[in-house]
C-alpha cells in the first residue's frame, strides 16, 4: 500500500520536473541578465520604454544562413531606424555548434553587415529555456511595457531556401510593425522553424 503511494508521489514529482517554464504572450516577458560580445551587461529591464526584439541565432545553422543572405540585415536596419533594441541571442553551449567568443561574434557581425544592438551570450541556456526558444532563428517581440507580444517563426515557409523568403508571409516583420504602431500582432504565436537550439 505504501509502495502504491510512493509510486504515485514519484510519478508526480517526475511530472513536475518535466514541465519547463513557458513564456506567455500578453504577459510580462521573463527578465534576464546577459553579457554581450563586448563584455557589457544587459538586462531586459534596462530597456524599459523601448521595444525589444530577441533573435535566437547560430551562424552555422543553414536556416540562419538563409535569412542572413540579406533578409535579417534588412529587418535589423528597419528596426534600428525605429529605435528598437535588437538582441541576437546565442544559447549554444560551449563545444556545440554556433558557440563563439566575443571577438568571433563581432567578426561575424562585421562580415555579415549585421546590425543588432548587441550579440549576447546564454551559454547555460537559462534565457533560452525561460523563453522556450527551440530553433534558430526564433523571434520574439517585447513591447515598451516589457510585455511579450510575439513569439515564433521568422516567416511562414519552413525551409532553408532563400527563394522561399519572398513567397512566405513575414510573420515576425508583421508582428514587429504591429507592435510599433501600438497594435496586437495577429498571429501573435507562430511555429518556429530552423535548427534546434544547441543547449
Amino acid at each position, binding site marked *: 500500500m505504501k509502495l502504491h503511494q510512493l509510486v504515485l508521489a514519484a510519478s*508526480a514529482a517526475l511530472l513536475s520536473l518535466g514541465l519547463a517554464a513557458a513564456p506567455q504572450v500578453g504577459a510580462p516577458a521573463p527578465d534576464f541578465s546577459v553579457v554581450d560580445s563586448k563584455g557589457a551587461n544587459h538586462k531586459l529591464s534596462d530597456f524599459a520604454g523601448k521595444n525589444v526584439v530577441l533573435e535566437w541565432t547560430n551562424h*552555422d*545553422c543553414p536556416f540562419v544562413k538563409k535569412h542572413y543572405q540579406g533578409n535579417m540585415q534588412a529587418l535589423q536596419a528597419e528596426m534600428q531606424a525605429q529605435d528598437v533594441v535588437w538582441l541576437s541571442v546565442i544559447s549554444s553551449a560551449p563545444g556545440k555548434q554556433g558557440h563563439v567568443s566575443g571577438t568571433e561574434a563581432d567578426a561575424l557581425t562585421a562580415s555579415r553587415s549585421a546590425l543588432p544592438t548587441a550579440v549576447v551570450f546564454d551559454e547555460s541556456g537559462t534565457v533560452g529555456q525561460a523563453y522556450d526558444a527551440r530553433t534558430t532563428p526564433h523571434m520574439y517581440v517585447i513591447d515598451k511595457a516589457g510585455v511579450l507580444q510575439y513569439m515564433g517563426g521568422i516567416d511562414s515557409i519552413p525551409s532553408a531556401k532563400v527563394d522561399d523568403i519572398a513567397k512566405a508571409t513575414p510573420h515576425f516583420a508583421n508582428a514587429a510593425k504591429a507592435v510599433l504602431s501600438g497594435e496586437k500582432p495577429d498571429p501573435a504565436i507562430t511555429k518556429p522553424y530552423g535548427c534546434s537550439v544547441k543547449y
Partner: protein
Amino acid sequence: MRSVIFLLLCCSVLIPAHAASSGWQTAKHLQAELISEYRQVSAGQQLQLALHFVPDEHWHTYWQNPGDSGLATSLSWQLPDGVTVGDIQWPVPQAIAVPPLMNYGFAGATVLLSDLNIAPDYAASSIDIQLQADWLVCEEVCIPAEAQLSLTLPVGSSAVVAADYAALFQQARQQLPQTLQANGRFDTSGGAFSATVDLPQPLQIEAFFVAAPELVDHAASQQINLQGNQLLLQQPLNTYFSGVAPQIELVLVTADAAYSVQLTQAGQGAAEILVTQGQQRDSALWLILLMAGAGGLILNLMPCVFPVLSLKALSIAANSAQQAQQQRDALFYSAGVVLSFVLLALLLIGLRAAGEAVGWGFQLQNPYLVALLVYLLFALGLSLSGVVQFGLGLMNTGGALATAKGGKGSFFTGVLAVVVASPCTAPFMGSALGYAVGQSAPVALLVFTALGLGMALPFLLLAFVPGFAKVLPKPGAWMDTLKQWLAYPLYLSAVWLLWVFGRQAGVDAQALLLIGVVCVAAACWLWGRRQLTQQGAATAIAVLLLLIIALALPALAPKPTVDNATAQTQTAAAHWQSWSAATLQQLRSEGKPVLVNMTADWCITCLVNERVALNTDSSKAALALYDVTYLKGDWTLRDAAITEYLRLYQRDGVPLYVLYWPGQPPQVLPQILTPDTLSQTLARLSRQPQS
C-alpha cells in the same frame, strides 16, 4: 560539388529507363532512392512508390509532426495527366530526445510509401515520375537538403512486380501503424491536450504520438490511463499552440505494435475530460492482491495489534510439541481473520449499494464506535497488565495454551484481531482500501480476502513451517515482563482514539467517555479479583452494572452545537476556510485559484502532511503570493458531500489535495506532500499559458 552532380547525372543516364529504381542519390549524411513496387505498370492500376532514405549512423529524419524543432520531409511530385499520387504513409515514429527539446522522427533507414493511381484510360506508353524531396537530416547539427528523383515506368497490358524490391515494400508496410476503427475524441481546454479513445479491446499503450504539430508539449510527460476499454490520454499543450484542425491523427504504441486512430474535436460544452495523475491507472489484479497481502502482513506490526498477536505467536512457539493442535488453531484463526475482513467488505459494499455515502474509514466516523474501540483497547491493555484474565486463549502465555479452548477460541481471536486492527487500517491504508471498495464487488472481496490472508500469514507460517517456530526465542519468565510492557502501546492507541472522539464529540463528551473508561477499569479490576478468589454473584452484578454505565455514557454525551464547531473553525482559520461544494463552485467561477484539502482527525497521513507541508510559513506565503483560497473539508465525521467530492477524483478516503488554477485542469497533488510540493506546483501552474 559540381563534379558530384555531374557524376550523378552520368549515373542516371546509365540506369536503364525501365528500372524500378531512380538509383541512389547521395546528399550530405543521407542517401535517397525512389522505387516503384512494379517495374511495368498497367492502366487503371494502383501501386506504391517508396522513397528510401538511408542516413549515416546516428542521423535522423523527421515525422509528419517533427516535434519541438526539425522539419517533416516533404514531397512534391510532377506526374503526367491521368496519374495521381497520395499523401505520405508515415511509418511509426520514434521519440528522439534532445533535452530540453523533444523531436519525433526516424533514426536509421526509413521508407516513405505513397500510393500511385493510374487512370483506366491512361494511354501513353510510359509514365515519367519526377519527385522533388525536401528533408532535414540531423545528428546534433542539421543539414537541410533536397533531391530531384526521377523514374520512368513502362505501361503494358499487364503489371510486372519489381521482385528485387518486394521485401523492401513488405517491410515498409509492416512499419506502418495499423488503422484502428475506434471512436476517439480530443479536447484542448484547460491547458492540456486530453483525449478519450474507445478501444475495441484493452491495449497496454506505452506512448502516443500526436500528428498535429504545435499541439502538445512534446517533451512533457504523457499520462496514459486505461479504464476497461476506454483509453484516457493527457499531455500539456504546446507553448506555440494556436489552434488545431477538427480531426487529427493519433498513433498509439504498445510493446510490439502500433495503431493509428482518428480523433475528432469534442464539441463545446462536452464534459471536462478529467485525467488525474495516474490515479485511474489500472494495475494488474495480482499486483493489487499482492499489495493487499503485504498490507495485511504489516498490520501485525500496528501498535493496536502487535501486543495482542505477538503473545499469541510466542504461545505457539511454546507449544511446538503439539503440532496438530497448533495447525488446527492457526487455520481457525486465519478463518476468523479472513471472514471478518470479508464481512467488513460486504458491509461496506452493501451500504454503498443502498446509496449510503460511506467510504473506508467509516468505522472511525461514528463517535460511538470510536468509544467502543477505546474501551476495547483499554480493557486489552489492562489484561496485559495483569489486572484481569480474558478467555479466548488470547492472553495465555506459556503452558496455559495446553488447556486450549479449541477451534472456537482461535476463530474469535482472529475476529478480535481484525476488530482491534480496524482503527489502524483507516489512517494507514484508507485510500488504498477505498480504491478496492470502489472496484467491482468480486474484486473488492478478493482484495479484502488477500488482506486477511496477509494478516494471518505469520501464524500459518509458524504452524506449518517448523523452521519459523524455531527462530522464536525460548519461552520463559521474560515473557510475562514483555507482556506487561506491551500493555503500553495499547494504552497509547486508546489515548489516540480518545483524542479523535474528543475532536468529534467535544470536550464534554470526552469527559463522559473518560468516566466510562474508569468504569471499565473498575469492572476489570473486580472481575480480576473474582477470578483469583472465586467470589460470588455480587461482584458479577457489579461488573455488569459498571459495563452498562460505560456503554451508556458515550451515548448520553451531548452533541456539540454547530456554533461550537464553527467557533472552533474560526479561531483556527488563520489561513483556511471550511470547504463546501458551493464555495468551491463560486470561487472557481470567479476565476480564483483554490486549494482543497480533504482531511480527517483520525488520518495520520493527513495530520503529518498538514504539519510538514501545509501549515508551514513557506506554504502560507505561497498561498498568499498566488492569492489562493485554501478550503479544508473535514471528513472526521460522516459527510455525504465530501464523500461525493472524493468520488469525483476516484478516491474513497482521505487525504485528497486538489489545486484549481484558472484555465487549467484540476491538479491532484500526491498523497504524501513534501514541504515544497505546494509552492512548486503553484509556481509551475502560474507559468503555464492560459487557454
